């Protein structure tokens, strides 16, 4: 099954603190792509960060970084120096390929609240 699992429905963090959002996935592929998307209350879907499975180095985008554990099929998102604007729903997603086509399979999401 091509599933993406986010087992934590919600988390809360104090402003300026660090928080880690968990995600696990299932795949039989050796090379694949993983993403974290942010959905603020306005309900846009904003790409936060992506990880290519064949790259051993964890992806980093400013305050956002991932801890990619390929053997464990784990892909967690770390947000450093949390800001009030980070309050949003966060979705983990995997790109599922079918020939030359691809589609995103999303987890259920986690609601992150940043407290002032």
């Amino acid at each position: 099954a091509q599933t993406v699992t986010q087992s934590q429905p919600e988390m809360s963090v104090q402003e300026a603190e660090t928080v880690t959002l968990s995600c696990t996935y299932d795949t039989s592929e050796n090379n694949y792509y993983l993403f974290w998307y942010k959905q603020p209350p306005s309900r846009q879907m904003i790409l936060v960060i992506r990880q290519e499975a064949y790259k051993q180095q964890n992806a980093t985008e400013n305050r956002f970084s991932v801890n990619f554990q390929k053997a464990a099929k784990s892909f967690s998102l770390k947000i450093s120096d949390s800001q009030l604007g980070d309050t949003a729903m966060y979705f983990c997603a995997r790109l599922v390929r079918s020939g030359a086509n691809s589609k995103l399979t999303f987890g259920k999401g986690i609601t992150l609240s940043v407290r002032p």
Partner: protein
Amino acid sequence: EPEVTQTPSHQVTQMGQEVILRCVPISNHLYFYWYRQILGQKVEFLVSFYNNEISEKSEIFDDQFSVERPDGSNFTLKIRSTKLEDSAMYFCASSVWGENQPQHFGDGTRLSIL
């Protein structure tokens, strides 16, 4: 930075009516997608489109749904006879290529069926 734009932002329609959701993908992108998010649930893939034809569709994308790229810029999703359960947020996305490229999402159209 180029964006995917969707119109309208909110559509209210009577059950049984036809609705067309519009999207303008990023101009140099070749692959286009529609996703759906029912309130409180995860985002689900509906359909992908490339070279003026459907590449892949999910089981949700039944005969009531259709997609079209009527000109060089617009990409539309039509629901022929809407049902209450079609109420959801509909996201359009595009990518440069279909394989291994990040998909850029529009702001979504909130569809409310009465």
